[in-house]
């Protein structure tokens, strides 16, 4: 059964395959060809399949496509504009936070959600928020550095914007 209501995926209106048994990750990967979200643990532990639904992170491997119906879904492909990387993506490259790359889409997605909810996170907040995303390659130190870079840049930019207003 196709989605009659209409869902937004990465800013575009589209139909997700519905039905009681279609997982969101399969709807995205097989139905829409969005291969960014990855299948690893299939138990909602590793975070490789993380997507945003209305700006909240979800494990798409344990979420039914139905749950996303009529809502706004964002995958890693939805960050950045017209070939430009998002600030988080840019920081991941700068900090060396990418090795095999299999966890990267989910991690980038989770970091966007983290900074959306906590614009000025301390280290403990970052560690708590990202504990649902496993990376076996990097040892996480570069991820932490990437998040702190984006946080500081966004705060500096906001400060500069405030200065202009004054």
């Amino acid at each position: 059964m196709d989605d009659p209501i209409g869902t937004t995926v990465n800013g575009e209106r589209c139909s997700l395959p519905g039905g009681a048994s279609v997982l969101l990750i399969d709807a995205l990967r097989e139905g829409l060809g969005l291969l960014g979200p990855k299948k690893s643990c299939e138990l909602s532990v590793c975070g490789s399949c993380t997507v945003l639904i209305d700006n909240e992170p979800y494990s798409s491997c344990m979420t039914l496509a139905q749950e996303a119906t009529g809502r706004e879904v964002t995958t890693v492909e939805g960050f950045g504009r017209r070939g430009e990387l998002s600030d988080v993506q840019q920081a991941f490259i700068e900090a060396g936070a990418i090795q095999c790359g299999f966890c990267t889409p989910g991690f980038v997605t989770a970091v966007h959600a983290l900074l959306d909810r906590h614009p000025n996170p301390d280290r403990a907040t970052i560690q708590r928020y990202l504990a649902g995303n496993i990376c076996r390659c990097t040892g996480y130190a570069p991820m932490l550095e990437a998040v702190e870079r984006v946080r500081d840049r966004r705060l500096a930019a906001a400060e500069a914007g405030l200065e202009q207003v004054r």
Partner: protein
Amino acid sequence: MTGGEAFGDLRAKVTGAAVFASDSRFPGMLHGALVRSDVAHGLIVALDTAEAEAMPGVTCVLTPDDFDGIDPFYGELVLDQPMLAIDRVRYVGEPIAAVVARTRREAVEAARLVQATIEPLPPLFNSDEAMGAGAERLHPNGAGAPADVPNICRESRLAQGDVDAALAAAAYVHHAVYECPPVYHYAMEPHCSLASWEADGLHVISGTQQPFRVRDTLARMFAVPTSRVRVRAPYVGGAFGSKGEAKYEPVVAAMARKAGRPVQLLCSVEESVHTVTRHGCRVEMWTGLDSSNTIVARRSDVTFDTGAYSDKGPRIAHRGAHRVTGPYRIANYEATSRAVFTNTVPAGAFRGFSTSQVLWASESAMDEIARHVGEDPLEFRRRHLLREGEPYLGFDAPVDADLGSDLDEAARLVGSATPSSPDTGTGLAIGVKDGGGGAARAAAHLRIHPDGSVEVHAGAAELGQGAQRVLARVAAEGLGVEVSRVEVRLGDTATAPFDRGTNASRTTVGVGMAVAKAAASARVALKVAWLADGGAKGSLRLDGADLVAGEDRRPMVDVLARGSGLPAREFPGLAVTGTHTDTQEEGSDFFPTLFYEVCATGVRVHVDRETGEIRVEHLASVVEAGHVLDEAGGHGQNVGAAMMGLGTSLTEELVYSQGELINANLIEYRVPTIAELPPGGITSVLVENAEGPGPGGAKGIGEAGIIAVAPALANAVEDAVGVRLRRLPLHPEAVWRALNQTAGSSPDERGR
């Protein structure tokens, strides 16, 4: 850490555009699922596939009856593993049949309907049972094994001097047993392979570290010419040893052959754990000291539980004998190392290839002995460490690093002085592993196109270790062009020259040198053509599509074409092949080491006496890199390996109950998360002495950072609270029991 740049794989990976095997598709592709044994050891008396075959969407079910024209056995040195069990199963999880269906879900559901009748045989759950008198033999004994002890897959012995006499005369003999359980790699991408039989032969896409070995294995098993097998390794979602040699490629090729359609097999994590593990290991060690507290003898007896099939077990046991004694001056030593067949998941390569397990023993023992004689563990090590230039074990290549200064640096970073807070301590360990994996030839094709852009083809695989970026830098530096002008294409047997595989930290050295030589040949060829064309003398460089020397600028293709008699429009640019042979003698049992991977690990821990929890406050990992080609990538390997070592030392353990793995999932098998990052961080130091055999004096460093972590932790725990732990992982419960002196559960009681 300084920043990585957005070239090579990074941009594709960060945007979700990078394609892995699990993202790959063949047109018209079907999906596979394996039927696995739920019996550890038994005879297959019947296999009923009728119900599965009748399911909607199911194309066929593959069984050993379909092996007409196929040699179903594979392995690294010993071809003892069948793609599907034939008559006899040897571990829980062993594939016994395979379903091909329209979707993965249909295949998985139909696989549950295949009825296997298996008559149980007595199972051998651990190496003691397997070596026991009268134990049923799972396979014939392998090389070096005593005939009268059953189930020895391989036994190797390495000795010098007279250990018996030296131990008998010793003033003090330290004797201890060290154990570590099997653990799992957990590369993020589970095993995934695709196969398609086409007019020009067999095409395979697979998350593999060794595409050429897989190609050659498939050609042999399916009796097709090598020229008709093409294997491609796209971006591989991590490997750490778990994706070497053939794994599921043979069975997928057989499924596709029977179905007459391309097939993809994507394993679950649980299935991947049931594919290959890191060997559980037991080391018994005797170390003798003379009256001046100098080590005069060491005897090591190492037993690796290698599981149901050989896989890489024989070489792991063999190398274990070389690595267990440690980088010390010990006149009399003897090391015996064996791999033993049991009815458990086959064990194979894992980052370090036996080194982590055997160093767990020898570097723990060094601290224990130092404490016994009342000497600082660092000073005690320093007195015995091999100096730069001394031969390892008395016969191998000279040590190519200053090991003592590496330890000093690690100690300085974590603060070796008496800790100020109670229950806090520091620990050190040093690891040395022969790198490069033995004699090998590496090659790379390099093309300079008419527009001046550069393309490199090599047979290594990109596992996340950064081969693509390192090789791009080597080519760019060699040619004097911007790195953004270089495209490195890896892991395709149809386009790349032969490569033995991406393992043993060998790519930067071997393939790196091949690329460097290709770039050097290209430069010479351009210079010769330039001078023949009457170009100006002086330093020649490639600038876009032009060759330039001083004020003289000419299109490269014009220069090359004028010498060839072809019109420039017909000229394809320049193509060269670089080859590099590691200078090692073949045929010797223990070949001379090409370079040593060296890591000094220091940790500072706090131990909670109430709970037994070990809190790692800071870790320092000092690695000999020779020459750093990619700074972010180099530190990334070091920090990532150290963190993996924290996992395999503190929480990770595959637990068997009656031969069945009971925690083959990420909920019960805990790998480190970002929450486990030490508050003081992981300090990575890459020492550059330019003594490596790779480009600019580089060494491989992929394995170094993990090998010394476990003993450094146990040494720190003793420093903090005075208890000694000799079994991994260092669970809070084990620490608590040691602190409270209650009897711990023995390994047998832990459900092996």
